[in-house]
């Protein structure tokens, strides 16, 4: 009887009551936060982030689709001119065409080709699809300055793209005037895919 009375007296003390309320408050809040608030907030923030990500992806898709439509439109417009690309930078080395081009211009300008050599073409080596491959032609000629000038101009005006990497002009030994019979050495680069 005394024991029960003591417990009752202990529990009704103001200090004990306050502590009990406070402890219960924190324990229940922790439980509620852990099992109710946290999952709800996690889902809400996750969905918000997903929506943000999807909007961003959608914007990129839209931009890409518009760009593709634009490219398609441009390609349709230039469809009949695509053969030009094949002529300027062919898929195969087509060294014969390249050499023939040079020879034709040389003979048209009355230039004598003393030496013409080609760099080796490695057909086995795999190169990135987007990279251009080189074909180097070393040429040695004897010509007058005006003819050489015209030769260079015509070479660069041809459809098949060629660039002159190196050019050396030397005065010939038996030349009567300064511009006659110049020894010209050239390194011409041709391209293919």
């Amino acid at each position, binding site marked *: 009887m005394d024991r029960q009375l003591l417990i009752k007296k202990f529990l009704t003390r103001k200090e004990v009551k306050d*502590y009990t309320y406070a402890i219960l408050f924190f324990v229940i*809040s922790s439980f509620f936060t852990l099992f109710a608030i*946290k999952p709800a907030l996690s889902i809400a923030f996750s969905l918000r982030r997903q929506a943000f*990500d999807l909007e961003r*992806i959608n914007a990129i*898709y839209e931009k890409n689709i518009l*760009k593709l439509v634009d490219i398609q439109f441009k390609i349709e417009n230039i469809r009949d001119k695509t053969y030009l690309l094949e002529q300027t930078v062919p898929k195969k080395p087509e060294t014969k065409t390249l050499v023939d081009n040079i020879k034709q211009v040389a003979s048209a300008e009355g230039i004598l080709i003393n030496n013409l050599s080609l760099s080796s073409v490695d057909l086995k080596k795999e190169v990135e699809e987007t990279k251009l491959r080189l074909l180097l032609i070393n040429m040695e000629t004897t010509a007058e300055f005006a003819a050489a000038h015209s030769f260079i101009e015509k070479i660069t005006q041809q459809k098949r793209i060629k660039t002159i990497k190196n050019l050396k002009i030397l005065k010939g030994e038996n030349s009567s005037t300064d511009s006659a019979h110049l020894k010209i050495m050239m390194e011409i680069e041709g391209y293919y895919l």
Partner: protein
Amino acid sequence: MKQKEFLIISITIFLTIIAWLIADIYHIATTEQIKLINPKVLKPVNINIEAETLKLLEEKK
């Protein structure tokens, strides 16, 4: 154990759970949630067709 110690433990648990909640939400908010899309498709298309260049090529002999 005294009641004061119980109170301190319950406050510590509560604060830990709040910190965990904040960290979890921050992690969710900063981590990309959509991971299934092929990143190759998301690259911006940068292709330019220069009609002017084709005109120049056309003019060449």
